[in-house]
């Protein structure tokens, strides 16, 4: 217990509760967002409960086939990435229940988890035997790596600014006034990170690796039934978890579930606002975009700090 000074067993239950709330929140929110996107396109869009039905349907499928151990582990890793990300970030600041397992230095861990899922997918999809999966994975990884560069630089600037890698402390430093938020105290780093945010939310114009019309259907080509259900769960969990990090790092975190819901939604909408109206970049285009815009801003933010 010495390594985890403020750990208590009950936190596991609390964390599971957090997970539950966040997954459901993600389920509904992504559906609502899709509906909004549909309205922009002049459509009605899916019912808000459609995600649940799809999830249930996938679990209800009768036949499953496997391509080996890594194939199994792919979605598991992927989900672990999402869950882990959420678990090591304080979801609600100041809440004893939803503090999760946040420790000093966990920012690095969180960044690792952002990447972890994609890596897991790479391994799993690679084993699925589908030649296009591997291509999709490599394209996806290339793009994500490039998108993470500005984030890493922005986070570096942040850690220089706050002189800590503890997310809880970063959040704490932003409490009090809205002007304490990093977005005002360090706008350059925020911009750099937000470029990465848009780039990694798997939305247009940066979702070519996942785009069904591209290489069918990218990494998850071979995934189906409960594997796909796992991935679906991650698809709703992961963006929320990622948004939570950004919220904590740059937008003062959340002190209640209501604030959480609103802030996450608003942040998420940033990528949506861009995504639903813009066409996709090709992989090399988006990489060039990150190198040309994201990277200099990130470097600049460090220099400014």
């Amino acid at each position: 217990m010495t390594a985890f000074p403020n750990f208590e067993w009950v936190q596991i239950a609390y964390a599971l509760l957090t997970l539950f709330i966040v997954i459901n929140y993600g389920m509904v929110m992504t559906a609502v967002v899709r509906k909004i996107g549909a309205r922009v396109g002049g459509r009605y869009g899916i019912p808000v409960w459609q995600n649940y039905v799809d999830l249930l349907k996938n679990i209800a499928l009768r036949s499953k086939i496997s391509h080996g151990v890594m194939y199994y582990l792919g979605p598991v890793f992927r989900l672990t990435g999402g869950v882990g990300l959420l678990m090591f970030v304080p979801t609600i600041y100041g809440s004893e229940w939803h503090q999760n397992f946040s420790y000093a230095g966990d920012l690095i861990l969180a960044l690792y988890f952002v990447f972890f899922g994609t890596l897991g997918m790479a391994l799993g999809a690679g084993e699925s035997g589908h030649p296009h999966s591997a291509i999709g994975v490599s394209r996806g990884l290339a793009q994500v790596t490039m998108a993470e560069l500005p984030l890493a630089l922005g986070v570096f600037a942040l850690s220089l600014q706050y002189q800590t890698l503890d997310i809880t402390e970063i959040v704490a430093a932003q409490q009090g006034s809205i002007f304490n938020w990093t977005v005002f105290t360090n706008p350059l780093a925020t911009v750099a990170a937000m470029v990465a945010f848009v780039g990694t939310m798997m939305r247009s114009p940066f979702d070519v690796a996942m785009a069904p019309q591209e290489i069918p259907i990218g990494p998850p080509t071979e995934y189906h039934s409960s594997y796909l259900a796992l991935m679906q769960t991650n698809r709703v969990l992961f963006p929320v978890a990622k948004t939570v990090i950004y919220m904590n790092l740059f937008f003062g975190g959340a002190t209640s579930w209501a604030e959480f819901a609103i802030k996450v939604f608003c942040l998420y909408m940033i990528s949506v606002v861009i995504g639903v109206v813009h066409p996709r970049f090709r992989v090399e285009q988006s990489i060039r975009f990150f190198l040309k815009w994201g990277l200099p801003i990130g470097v600049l933010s460090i220099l400014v700090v």
Partner: protein
Amino acid sequence: MSLRDVLSPFTAWKHVINDPVTIKDPFNRPGADRYRGFHQNDMDKCIGCGSCEEICQNAAIDMVPVEGQEAGPGDSGLRPMIDYGRCCWCALCVDVCMTGSLTMSNEYTWVDSDPDAFRFVPGVDGKSWDLEPKGYQREDTRRLTGTTRAPMGELAPEDRIGNFCEIVDGFTPEQAVIEADRCVECGLCVATCPAHMDIPDYIAKVRDGDFEGGLQLLYETNPFSQACGRICTHKCETTCAAMHEGDAIAIRWLKRAITDSVDKDRYFDLIQKPDVPETGQSVAVIGAGPAGLTTAFDLARKGHKVVVFEALDKPGGMMRYGIPEYRLPYDVLDHEISVIEAMGVEIRCNMRVGHEISMEQLAKAYDAVVLSIGLHQGRSTRVPGSDKAEAAIDLLRRITAGVEVPVPEQVAVIGGGNVAMDIARSMARLQKIKYGRVGVTVTALEDLDRFLADREEIEEAQEEGCVIYPARGPQEIVLDGETVMGLRTWKVQAIFDDQGRFAPKYDEADEMIHPAGMVVEAIGQMADISLLGEALTEKLEWNRGRIMIDSTGQTSEPWLWAAGDAVSGPDVIHAVADGHRVAVSVGKMLAAKREKVQ
């Protein structure tokens, strides 16, 4: 990539507050007014001609018998069943439909988990769109088949009235091909034709220009094709599918076109006696009319020896002596009979049975006797003075025979049938030759549109100057001593009583006197059965004054058959049909007899 390119897409966000462009209820959207949706078929209009089946490029249509639709005149009793596993909704079937019964609704949704469910008979298998008024209908101005007859030359009334020349030119081969091309070859007419000629088949031959092949087809069912090509009552044309679209196909004239187009001498090459062994059996036929000669033709081709006894000078029966020359020229008839004679039929003219030879002799000398004596006695109106009236049939015979007949300046004809028209027009010609003008009055009980005569006969008679008074009942032949002065008629109010019995009612106030130097009665004919002799007349069974026969034409005597007008009414094509029927029956009897001998 300019800043504008980045920013302008965001304007699309304004749609988020607009109503979606999505169709809110896609399940109840009607098709366009003229959408080519699922088929409808009006059972009352459909005649089951199968043109839709024929035209379908996808073999999607079957003609099937359905309950409640019986075959009958002009209706095959079949209805189209459409396989929606084949249909591509091109609407050719609707466009070709001869009656316009087949249409399309604008309904277009039909899902089912049973693939066999998509076969249905529109109009029979109830569907939700059966009464849907919208949908694709054929445009009235557009027809895939021609609607008007090919033109044919004929003599103008003023050119034809002074002579007995044939009126109608007949189709030239080119015209015939054009006319034949209108035929959809449904074959509804075949059932209507008493002789069930292969009408669509020979029309197809005409269309292909194969007149010789057509002639052979004609002779398979009708040895009087030349005559029928001119004077047939062409009942077939009343059930022609094309009449729903416009003019019926000129089936009669097409038949004539075949017979005219083939060289007269070629007939004997094309129609040859089949190579069958002589049976040694012999048949006597009484009367060389169409029924008798058809029987003779058929039996001779089966290898029997046939002798035809004809009371008059020349063979042909009523076709020669009842039908005026301007409708059926004698040389055509002579040629026709010569073809029949070429089968080995022997015709003995001027042999009146009962005079030169008796029935008993015939019965003894021949294995079978066929009685086809026709109707050569005119019926009388029995009004006062009718003993002074002439019988139309008698008059016609005298004209044909070249006997001098009295031709007064004014003639009154009683009757509205074809014989009435024949005598009226014949007298009109004689008047024209003698006096230079026509003075014929035709009176009949019926209204003009109920006349029994063919429409064209009536019209042509009127063109030639005959005056027709419909709905007038003869009351008296006005006499001045022995001289006929005219005909007195009353207006007819009703011909039949409530029970449908013949009981004319007259309006006595509406009286007319038709001045005439001759009154001709043309109200019907009957057979002269005196030739049978008393003993045979006693022995035979009778049915309302007619010899009773079974469906094959056999009388109650095993050796005697009866055929033709005397048993089935005045009509050449009926007589031909009778002839075939009797010939088969006789042939069977003879075969049985042969077997018994062996």
